């Protein structure tokens, strides 16, 4: 990447270049069409225009999406956070335990304090792993794998090895109510999405995140406090996982240390399918949202057409590999043009 040939590669066919850039949108469209046609042919009903299906897909996507949005920024800056699944579980357990202790209080007060506790605890693992990575040069994979184990253990210890039930009507509403037909967790995920998109595209913080992923040495020379920024990124990833933990507790009226375990790989998959490079420097929140939707449509759609649920893993695995293959050939197909920032 250091030296560039003076002659740009010849322009490819515009249609091919368009497909290479917009393939994740197209793929989502094709998936939805496939299930729509299947639903009409087999069941004589609709897939997409059934509000129940849409709600379920959005709800399925919301928690992995929350993890994936924090993960997006970490990956853009050239890192990775393996701990987010168990950070989510830890936040969930801490929230449920806190609320159990506050049973005598007004449900609103108990809920607020529970959320505060969950979010407060969610930034600690990122503070630790970020410091290890940024200041002690521990590889991101190792630093966050360490926190994966720590959060997993502390989560189960806090929960005494079981799930922590909470009986709080406000909490139930937070997880299961709908506003104008949209589930509250989906609304929360959408708000976080807007905030994260703005942060990444329009703020100095976002610009530095891209710069660090693009060229760390140049970022340091430009006066960016790279270690501090790195720590903040991992804390932000943990914070997003904390929000997911709050939603988990609210949806199931219980805290569970293992609640986020299956979502870690989904979150990384969503980021990668959304077009981010694991080498850093590229990726967008919108791309990650599309990636999370693709995974959710596959998961929900396969159940909808009555395929054994284990095929979901196969399908998502194949999509991850295909998306990376497309990403690697993208530069060739588009003549090197790529615009994230």
């Amino acid at each position: 990447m250091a030296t560039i040939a003076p002659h740009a590669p010849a322009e490819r066919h515009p249609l091919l270049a368009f497909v290479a850039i917009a393939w994740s949108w197209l793929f989502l469209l094709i998936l939805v069409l496939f299930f729509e046609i299947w639903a009409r042919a087999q069941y004589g009903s609709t897939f997409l225009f059934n509000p129940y299906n849409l709600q379920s897909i959005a709800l399925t996507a919301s928690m992995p999406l929350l993890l994936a949005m924090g993960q997006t920024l970490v990956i853009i800056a050239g890192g990775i956070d393996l701990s987010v699944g168990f950070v989510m579980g830890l936040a969930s357990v801490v929230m449920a335990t806190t609320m159990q202790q506050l049973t005598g209080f007004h449900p609103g007060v108990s809920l607020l304090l529970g959320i505060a506790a969950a979010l407060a605890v969610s930034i600690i693992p990122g503070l630790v792993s970020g410091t290890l990575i940024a200041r002690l040069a521990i590889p991101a994979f190792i630093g966050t794998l360490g926190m994966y184990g720590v959060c997993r253990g502390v989560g189960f210890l806090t929960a005494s090895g079981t799930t922590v039930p909470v009986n709080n009507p406000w909490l139930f509403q937070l997880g299961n109510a709908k506003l104008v037909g949209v589930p509250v967790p989906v609304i929360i995920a959408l708000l976080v999405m807007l905030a994260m998109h703005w942060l990444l595209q329009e703020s100095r913080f976002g610009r530095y995140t891209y710069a660090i992923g693009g060229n760390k040495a140049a970022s340091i020379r430009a006066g960016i406090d790279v270690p501090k920024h790195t720590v903040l990124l991992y804390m932000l990833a943990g914070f997003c996982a904390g929000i997911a933990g709050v939603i988990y507790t609210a949806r199931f009226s219980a805290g569970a240390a293992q609640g986020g375990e299956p979502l870690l790989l989904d979150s990384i998959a969503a980021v990668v399918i959304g077009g981010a490079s694991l080498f850093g420097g590229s990726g967008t929140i919108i791309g990650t949202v599309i990636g999370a939707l693709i995974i959710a449509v596959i998961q929900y759609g396969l159940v909808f057409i009555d395929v054994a649920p284990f095929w979901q893993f196969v399908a998502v695995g194949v999509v991850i590999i295909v998306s990376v293959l497309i990403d690697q050939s993208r530069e060739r197909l588009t003549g090197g043009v790529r615009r994230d920032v």
Partner: protein
Amino acid sequence: MSEPLLAIRHLTKRFGGVTALEDVDLTVRRGEVLALAGDNGAGKSTLIKAIAGVHSRDEGEIHFKGTAVDFASPSAARAAGIETIYQDLALADNLDVGANVFLGRERFTRFLGLLPRLDRETMRQEAEKVLHQLEIDIEPKKLVQPVRNLSGGQRQAVAIGRAIYWKAELLIMDEPTAALGVPEQRKVMELIARLKAQGVAIIFISHNLGDIFAVSDRILVLRRGRNAGERRIDQTDGDEVVKMMVGG
């Protein structure tokens, strides 16, 4: 002759028991190109790092714009107006020209008068202005693409443009033409000549005597950490320079 922009007297730098620079003198004026030559290990890199605030010094004085300075860090040197251009450390490949020129010093506007947001348009226009001032041509559509789509010479030019935009008065260029094709090398040489015409002082390290004789006013040769000789470029030739470099 005007007052030198940068004047170094009796600079000595040791690393443990090893003396990297001993009693080195160097001056450069505004609008002057000083070539720094010497064999590998002669101390060229140590010298420019001492100027740029990377290395502290053990003895000697550095005067910049007439005052004694002691830069604690590269950013202190940069703030004073000394910019070093490195081949590959300069730009974030995934950001566009405007973002690179303003990296670390972004401009903001307000969305609906409220939320601060990056002012891409202003940054692009300002970057275009400084590139225009340096007579660097970059196709308008490439200005808004990641700089990895630019040629090596254009990327070098963007790094220099950034330094000039932020009021660098002394540019230190370490092998600016290495890793460039021949037409691109010529463009960088032309750019150095324009910078000189605009009153920028340049210290320029090169192994390429052709480049040195093409754009420099003076040449300073280092050998084993000491001044081995200094000549006006029109009063010397390649043979003499090589002799100064290798000794004898």
